[in-house]
């Protein structure tokens, strides 16, 4: 296969920019998009299951919006909601599907802030074996 493009999509403006760029690439490369929404409630304490359900629902709403957006751009797409932290989610989906690349958006935050607070693109480019395309939102 190796023809799918994995996109990190959480409904934020920068993830929309990532999706748009990925949709353009997908139509050019005749690839299929996989919209990944990764979430994982912090393990410590409380009603984790309801938190998880709330995130799942949020993911469903957000990714169905993303699907519309992708279709509007003429790209074929599907959704993967993954109960993992976003970097893990993107990499595991990319690995499992032997994807062509991962596309994520960045807020254009100060690099130091991203490094300290652990931004997704920052971690992803260090850890991913799949090529990563970072799009500024």
């Amino acid at each position: 296969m190796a023809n799918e493009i994995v996109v990190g999509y959480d409904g934020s403006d920068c993830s929309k920019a990532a999706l748009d760029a990925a949709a353009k690439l997908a139509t050019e490369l005749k690839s299929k998009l996989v919209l990944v929404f990764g979430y994982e409630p912090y393990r410590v304490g409380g009603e984790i299951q309801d938190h998880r359900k709330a995130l799942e629902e949020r993911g469903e709403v957000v990714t169905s919006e993303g699907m519309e957006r992708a279709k509007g751009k003429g790209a074929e797409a599907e959704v993967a909601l993954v109960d993992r932290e976003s970097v893990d989610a993107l990499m595991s989906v990319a690995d499992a599907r032997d994807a062509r690349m991962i596309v994520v958006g960045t807020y254009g935050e100060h690099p130091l802030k991203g490094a300290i607070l652990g931004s997704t693109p920052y971690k992803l480019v260090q850890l991913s074996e799949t090529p990563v395309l970072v799009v500024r939102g």
Partner: protein
Amino acid sequence: MESSPQAGGVEDKGLKKNAVSYLSSIVIGVASTAPGYSLAAVLGFVVLASGAAGTEAVGFQAPAVLLVSFVPMFFIASAYYYMNRADPDCGTTFSWVTKAMGPHLGWLGGWAIVVADVIVMANLAQIAGLYSFLLVDAQSLADSTVWVTFVGVIWIGIMTAIVTRGIELSARTQQFLLGVELLTLGAFAVVALWKVYVTGEPGTQHIDASWFSPFAVDSLSTLTAGMLLAVFIYWGWDSAVTVNEETEDSSEAPGKSAVVSTVILLLIYVIVSAAAQAFDFSLLSDPKNSDDVLSALGSEIFGSPLDKILIIAVLTSAAASTQTTILPTARTTLSMARAKAMPKVLGDVHPRYLTPHVSSILMGVLSIVWYVGLTIVDENILFDSLAALGLMIAFYLGLNGIACAIYYRHELLSSVKAFLFVGVAPLIGTAILYYLMIKNAIDLADPVNSESGDSWLGLGPPLVIAIGFMALGVILMIWQQIRAPEFFRSKLETAPPDLVARAPATAGKES
């Protein structure tokens, strides 16, 4: 999901999910209880309470009280453990109690968690504010209620922001912070005991076996007052038991980390309290030092500037407990909102950070209002609220014990283990906690038995605080029931058959 019929929905429920390594589940277990902060906040009061209530007499049995207090927590943890092992999806207090005992008790259980959180945040903020100034040697500011409160409020703001922003300390950072905390408390105990036994400094005394004997406590009132306070120091440990750990063979080794974290906690508390008493009992038992015994003892034991590490340990401990205090509470209100037991907005998650941000921020705001309001009225009442906190914690932990036995009532006779650990132990835990709660409520009715010595409506402030919050809870519950009756019609449930047997802990040996 209409637009994506081909998507598998939630992908990859795979192997890593919810599994935590052995070491980090020990770390979570110990860090959740924030031993450094708990000792700083409570040890002085436990020592005072270990004396005869209402008199100037003080007792030496604080270590014994800390030991005995663990017993009910251990039994309740058994309820947590089995509820969670059998069905990790079933939530905690609010969900369990609602299923097992009905929506009203479930609602009040959730409410008690919220109240406990608001109260403890105020106390946490006070300690954090005070120790922030002690860290930079600003003694005059540390003596100023206004400044301590100001910095305390900033701390609440920071802690709320951390939870809202969803900043997770990595497992490694947690291990490091906890390591520093444990080493510091260990060094505190070793140096104190060195000065007692080797250099034999004046004012010190040798440890006596009677310090560890609950039977040496002079009266039952004394023991229960101390225990109610001490229950607080194990608070958090119970929920850490539910963290699913990743083990080689989960049917053989579940809960090993819970056992190890328990032993570590017990050792810290007993050794540090005994060492502190041996080193300088008069300082420890001086009511003036009650709100910051560790910093007072730290400067005596380590001298400057080494005493700063103890202050850092307490501060990091307070900060570390933030995530384990606010987040579970915010999740409780999120869960209640989703069940339509609270306003819908509390169930919102932040679009980017994916945290229950509305609930978290509300908790922060309520804590600030409570903290500042109480400080304006009378600073001593802040300490009285610790006793009220004990009543709240005892109430909702006790509900869990009963809920466990009721939820599994058809399964209890399926094996001896199920009978003992799912039925008997949780109920004994509840019985002890409710005994403490009622006995103390009666004792606290007398204003003399409070830190402030104030009389509110002829009662002691801690009791008025506890009753007031519960009364407020009942009013809000009724209001919610009028607004949205649906939740309050939810039906009772029992455990599906074989659920206990499916729990690894029982399955391993019995079958």
